[in-house]
C-alpha cells in the first residue's frame, strides 16, 4: 500500500496518491476514489493474521459389552455386512442383501452405546410408506413393484457418533455497499468498500455421523434429524427383534465429517445477517476454534430395504422415529421413452394450438 514516504497506492485504480496531513481522508486524483489510509493499513494487518480452524475432540472412554449380555456378531458371507443381534440365533438373513448370516461370536469387549432411540414406527407403517412411495411413479418397472419383497423390510439400529461442540468463530469479510442517484444527464453510483468482522460463539449439540461402513453416509444424512429428547439409556433388551449394525467407523474417522458440517453451519450463521447489509460480500477469512468437543455413541432406529434389480441395488431407508424416508427406485427405459415421445407430441400440439389461437386474435 505504502510505496515511499507519504505516497500511497489507490486501492481502486492503483494510481499513486500523495498524502497531505491537512486533508484527512485521501482522494485519488485519477479516479476520485476516497480512502482512509489508517483503516486500509489496519485491514491489511487483520488479513495478514494467520489462523487455522481448531477442532479438539475429547478422548472419552466408552463402556464395553461383557459376555453375559449375550450380544453376538454376525457376518454375511455374501456382502460382508456385519450386524449385531441379541441372542445367538441359528440362522438369519442379512438385512443388506438377504443372504444367510453366519455367527462370528460374542462381541464382548466391543463398545457399548450410551443411548438408544427405540423404534416408534411399526413395520406395518414402514411397509405402507413404501407402497405409497411406489404409487406415483409411472416410470417404475412393473416387475419391480409387483415383486412381493416388501416383507423383507428390516428394522436396524444404526450406530451414530454424536458430536457436541462449543465453537468460537472469527469471521472476516470484504463487503461493499452501492447507492445510485440520477443527476442531470448522468446516473451517479457510489460504492463504499468495507472490511467486516464478526466474532462470537455458538453451541452445537449432537451432530450425528453414521458409524457404520455398510450404511452410506448420504442415505443416513437424508433421513436426519432424529429427536434426541426421546433417547433412553442403552439396554440390550431393546435389540430384541431387530438387527443392530455394528459400528466399524471409529469415532476419530467420523470427526472429519462432523467438523465439515459444524464449520459450515457456524460460518453460515455468522455470515447470514451480513448478506442483507451489503450488496457484495466475500469471506476473506474464517477461523473456528472449538472447545469442549464431546463424542457419544448411540443407536438410531432405521427401517431398511435393499432390492437388487438389473444388476444394481436400490435402497429404501426410513427414520424409525420420525417416519422421514428416502429411497431410490429404478426407471423403466421403455416406459421412459414412451412417455417422452407422447408428452413431447402432446406439448407440441398444445403450443401449436396456442400460437394458432394467438395469431387469430392478433
Amino acid at each position, binding site marked *: 500500500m505504502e510505496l515511499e514516504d507519504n505516497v500511497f497506492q489507490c486501492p481502486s485504480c492503483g494510481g499513486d496518491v500523495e498524502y497531505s496531513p491537512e486533508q484527512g481522508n485521501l482522494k485519488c486524483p485519477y479516479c476520485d476514489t476516497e480512502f482512509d489510509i489508517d483503516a486500509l493499513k489496519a485491514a491489511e494487518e487483520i488479513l495478514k493474521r494467520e489462523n487455522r480452524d481448531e477442532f479438539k475432540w475429547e478422548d472419552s472412554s466408552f463402556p464395553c459389552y461383557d459376555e453375559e449380555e449375550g450380544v453376538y456378531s454376525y457376518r454375511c458371507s455374501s456382502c460382508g455386512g456385519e450386524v449385531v443381534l441379541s441372542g445367538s440365533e441359528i440362522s438369519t438373513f442379512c438385512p443388506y442383501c438377504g443372504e444367510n448370516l453366519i455367527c462370528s461370536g460374542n462381541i464382548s469387549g466391543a463398545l457399548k452405546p450410551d443411548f438408544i432411540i427405540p423404534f416408534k414406527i411399526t413395520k406395518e407403517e414402514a411397509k405402507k410408506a413404501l407402497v405409497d412411495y411406489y404409487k406415483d411413479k409411472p416410470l417404475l418397472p412393473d416387475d419391480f413393484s409387483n415383486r412381493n419383497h416388501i416383507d423383507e423390510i428390516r428394522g436396524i439400529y444404526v450406530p451414530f457418533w454424536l458430536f457436541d461442540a462449543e465453537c468460537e468463530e472469527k469471521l472476516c469479510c470484504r463487503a461493499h455497499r452501492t447507492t445510485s442517484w440520477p443527476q442531470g444527464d448522468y446516473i451517479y*453510483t457510489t460504492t463504499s468498500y468495507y472490511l467486516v468482522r464478526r466474532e462470537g460463539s455458538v453451541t452445537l449439540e449432537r451432530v450425528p455421523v453414521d458409524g457404520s461402513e455398510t450404511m452410506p453416509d448420504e442415505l443416513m444424512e437424508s433421513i436426519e434429524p432424529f429427536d434426541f429428547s426421546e433417547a433412553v439409556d442403552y439396554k440390550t433388551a431393546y435389540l430384541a427383534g431387530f438387527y443392530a449394525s455394528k459400528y466399524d467407523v471409529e469415532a476419530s474417522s467420523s470427526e472429519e465429517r462432523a467438523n465439515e458440517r459444524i464449520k459450515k453451519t457456524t460460518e453460515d450463521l455468522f455470515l447470514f445477517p451480513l448478506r442483507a447489509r451489503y450488496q457484495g460480500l466475500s469471506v476473506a477469512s474464517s477461523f473456528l476454534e472449538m472447545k469442549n468437543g464431546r463424542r457419544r455413541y448411540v443407536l438410531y432406529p432405521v427401517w431398511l430395504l435393499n432390492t437388487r434389480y438389473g444388476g444394481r441395488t436400490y435402497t429404501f431407508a426410513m427414520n424409525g422415529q420420525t417416519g422421514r424416508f428416502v429411497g*431410490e427406485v429404478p426407471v423403466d427405459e421403455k416406459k421412459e421413452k414412451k412417455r417422452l415421445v407422447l408428452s413431447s407430441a402432446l406439448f407440441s400440439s398444445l403450443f401449436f394450438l396456442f400460437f394458432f389461437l394467438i*395469431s387469430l386474435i392478433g
Partner: protein
Amino acid sequence: MKRSYLVLLMLLLVLPLSARTLFMDQAGLLDEADSDVVQQSLMSLSNREGMDVVVVTTNSYGGKDSRSYADDFFDYNGYGRGVDRDGILLVHNPVAREYYFSTSGHAIEAFNDDAIDYLEEGITPFLRSGDYKGAYLKFASLAENVMEIYYSGEAFRREEGPGGFFFPAWLLVSLVLGCVSGWFYVSTLKRRHRNVSSRSDADDYLKKNSMDIVRDEEIFLYRTVSRVYRPRNNNGTSSTHVSSSGRTHGGGGGRY
C-alpha cells in the same frame, strides 16, 4: 433552378378532397393504366389517413442528393396536410437505383426509424425485381399499417410489424418447445425416483439461544464514484434534419 415540370398543387386542409397528383412518374416507369392504379391507391389512402402519401420517380436529382431532392420536392410542391403539412414522399431513382423517404409534420413521428426500416424492407424486393408498380403499392399498404399504429397512440416498433401466421416456422417452434417441455416433464418424473441428498450442514443441531456475538464491526476502506450517461426515455426515435426551405423533415433511404 429549372422546375418547369412541376405541377401546381392545391393545398386543402379539409374535405372536399383534392384530385392532386400523388404519383409523379417523371421517369416514365409505368404505363398509363398502372399509373392510374397507383395514383388511385395513394389518393384513397391519403384521404383515409389524413396524410399525403406521395411517390415520385426521377432519373436525375438535378445536382442534389436524394434527401434534398425528396425534401424540396415535398416542400416546393405544397404537399402535406394540415398546418404541420403531414405527409410522406417516396423518391425513386431507377438510374441510380436509389430510393428515399421524406417525412414531414406528424409523419415524422409516425414514420420513426423503425418504421422507415420496415418500409425499406418491404419495397426493396420489388424494386430489385423491377416490379415498380408492386413496390409503390407495397409502400402504400405498409405506410397505412404504420399510420394505423400511430393513430392508435403507439410508437411503431419493428417487432410489432404485422406478420401472418407462418405455418412451418410456428410448427418448428412448437416442436422445439414441446420436446423441451416433454423432456422436462419426464425428468421431473425421473427425479421422483431418488430423493437421497447428503447434508453438508448441521443446522438442525444448533443449541437454541446459544449464539453470542462479541464483535460486529465494519471498517471503512475506500469509496469510488462513477457515472454513466442516462439515455432519455423515448418511444421510438425519429431522426430529423432541416431541408433547404428551412422546414424539418424525417425519413431515410438507401440503394437496392
